[in-house]
């Protein structure tokens, strides 16, 4: 850095002497000034006592309300409690392996190209020790190779596309969240179990990668289980369209037993409001595969009997273990609302990282990132959602089961009835096989009991 500065200064004087002070030289000096300024604002490297954790999630934009903000809340709560050593065993050690956690926040809003730039900044400029983040599948796909290039431990916590570990092998990238495959396969199994003479299905999904993939996986899985299923109408409105008058009319003109929807956020809320006002859900039961994130906001409007998914054993589907009790108690008392699945998944990621780091610390006092990575592969750790096994993606992808239930308000509180649990091997493909192929070939090898 100092050498560069000296070269800069020398060049400055050379040019000044040769060309005299004119405008072009001024712009050049401005350019140099920027460079010099930049050097002095580079962040410090990590100290021995803190663990710098970069967290990337939606802090603004449409995905902030349902997903980003609960994630942020959960992260703040967990980091604070961890730094005070107040989390129940096995996480009662302070911070991560004794080092207090310092969070560097990054907003996930913006295109994938922008996110790649932000990630590089986070890792190279802000020098974080690890990164947890990413809700958008598009961002995960773009960031994974960059994480490999820069060699920084990165934990995806929410994005759902199975493509990450099915199309590539990564060393530095892990995902403690679950793939979207289990949402679709679980939903298909659930409605087949729920309604014995299931005949027809309709769908309304947002017209972008998430909606398209969700529908395709779901209908493929459903066709495996019920080959004669009739598809009535498949709607793909633009994302953030917000108004579904014509789509709801179409769904009502061709009624089906169930309506599949992977809607989220404002679109989900608008669809529920508008559909409810027109009585759409009186004869057709909706399946909201990620509806749990908006469940408490829409407590009064969510139709009774709606099949609501939480993308895994999260929220009200989570088991009654010590960590879950700790998490719910603290989250509700601090934020006044029940934690939804993005909050659960964030905690899961932090605990996974902590678990791996402390497992490495047990073997070697001065552990390196490589030790953490070795410990993380095929790790089994505890979370509010139960035991998480990193059994897919050559030890980099978490594997859990999923539950679905029907929404009902009992004693003034939202609950699920008719809950069915599908174990991990029932809804996940075997390691090494692509989800899309597994579903296409009839989901062979699924262990559902």
């Amino acid at each position, binding site marked *: 850095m100092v050498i560069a500065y000296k070269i800069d200064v020398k060049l400055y004087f050379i040019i000044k002497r040769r060309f005299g002070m004119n405008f072009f030289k001024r712009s050049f000096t401005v350019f140099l000034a920027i460079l010099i300024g930049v050097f002095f604002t580079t962040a410090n490297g990590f100290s021995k006592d803190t663990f710098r954790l970069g967290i990337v999630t939606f*802090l*603004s*934009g*449409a995905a*902030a*309300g*349902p997903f*980003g*903000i609960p994630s942020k809340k959960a992260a703040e709560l967990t980091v604070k409690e961890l730094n005070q050593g107040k989390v129940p065993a096995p996480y009662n050690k302070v911070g991560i392996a004794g080092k207090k956690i310092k969070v560097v926040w990054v907003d996930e809003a913006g295109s994938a190209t922008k996110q790649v730039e932000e990630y590089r900044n986070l890792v190279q400029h802000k020098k974080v020790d690890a990164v947890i983040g990413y809700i958008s599948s598009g961002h995960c796909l773009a960031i994974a190779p960059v994480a490999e290039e820069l060699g920084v431990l990165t934990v995806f916590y929410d994005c759902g596309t199975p493509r990450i570990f099915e199309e590539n092998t990564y060393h530095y990238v892990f995902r403690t969240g679950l793939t979207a495959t289990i949402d679709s396969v679980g939903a298909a199994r659930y409605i087949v179990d729920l309604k014995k003479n299931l005949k027809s299905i309709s769908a309304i999904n947002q*017209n972008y990668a998430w909606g398209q993939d969700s529908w395709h996986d779901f209908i493929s899985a459903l066709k495996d289980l019920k080959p004669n299923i009739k598809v009535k*109408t*498949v*709607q*793909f*409105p*633009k994302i*953030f*369209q*917000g*108004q579904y*008058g*014509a*789509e709801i*009319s*179409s769904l*009502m*003109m061709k009624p089906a037993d169930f309506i599949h929807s992977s809607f989220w*956020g*404002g*679109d*989900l*809320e*608008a669809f529920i*409001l*508008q559909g*409810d*006002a*027109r*009585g759409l859900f009186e004869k057709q039961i909706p399946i909201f595969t990620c509806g749990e994130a908006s469940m408490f*906001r829409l407590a009064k*409007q969510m139709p009774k009997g709606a099949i609501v998914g939480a993308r895994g054993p999260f929220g009200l589907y989570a088991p009654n273990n010590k960590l879950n009790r700790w998490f719910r108690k603290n989250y509700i008392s601090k934020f006044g609302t029940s934690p939804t699945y993005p909050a659960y998944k964030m905690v899961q990621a932090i605990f996974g990282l902590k678990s791996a780091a402390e497992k490495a610390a047990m073997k070697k006092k001065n552990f390196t990132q490589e030790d953490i990575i070795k410990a993380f592969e095929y790790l089994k750790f505890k979370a509010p959602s139960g035991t998480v096994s990193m059994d897919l993606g050559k030890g980099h992808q978490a594997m859990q089961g999923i539950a679905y239930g029907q929404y009902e308000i009992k004693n003034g509180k939202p609950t699920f009835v008719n809950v069915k649990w599908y174990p991990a091997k029932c809804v996940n493909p075997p390691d090494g096989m692509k989800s899309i192929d597994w579903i296409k070939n009839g989901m062979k090898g699924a262990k559902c009991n």
Partner: protein
Amino acid sequence: MNILVILLDGLVYSSWLFIVSTGLTLIYGVMRILNMAHGSMYAIGAYTAATIVGIYFNHGFVPWGSYFFFISGAMFAGIIAGLLIERGILRIMYGSDEVIMILVTYAILLILEDVIKFIWGVEGYFAYQPYTYLGRSHIFGISFTNYDLYLIIVAAIIGVILWLWLNKTRFGKLLIAVINDQEISVAMGINVTKVYIITFAIGCMLGALAGGLTAPGISIVPGMGIQIIIVAFAVVVIGGLGSIGGALIGSLLVGMARAFAVHLFPQIELFVIYGVMALVLAIRPHGLFVRAKVRKI
């Protein structure tokens, strides 16, 4: 039965489009400014209406009174915002190139998007009570909300009021004079500055009104302003910039095309609006209604 449902869907969507785009076309017709901040007006109207509905129903007043409050609240917010923008920023830039004005209003749109986030936060709002209160009707075999059906009537009323205002009142005739020739109007003693202020305020009010009327049926989220602009542009450009009759025809075209696409060819739904716009522009470069008449409104 099917086609009637499609037509009714089309009509519902068209009436919404009309209310959204009249403000935009009015401002352009009079001031030659393509107001990109119209999207923010829509958002401000929606958020204001949602806040008012929230407060109103928390106090437990009678449901039928809420309509007056949230609609007028939205309109009021639009007028205030319009006045602030016009007097604050646009006034400095009068006389500039049309495209520069677009960039100015684009900058205002960006600023307002974040201002809205500061005032109302990033969580979504909803204000569904007025929407569900009016109940539903069974027409052509399926149910429609009465709120949506009334919106058709409201759109028609707005259209009629605007037409009357422009053609039958003194101020309306002044507006037409300014539209046709600004310099002579000034020479004739018309206070063009006042005309501009009032027009811009009313245009913004119409945008906010659209937002306020739509609010009860949707979830109001950040970014809704930017989503709406493209739709409004397409409609206005198709009908002819500056022509309210054009906005009407444009909304009907786009609304019907969309309804047919959704029911019959859901795959092309994404392109319908741009396809129609490109098609119309290719055939009639200035929109459907502009070359044909001398009087634009």
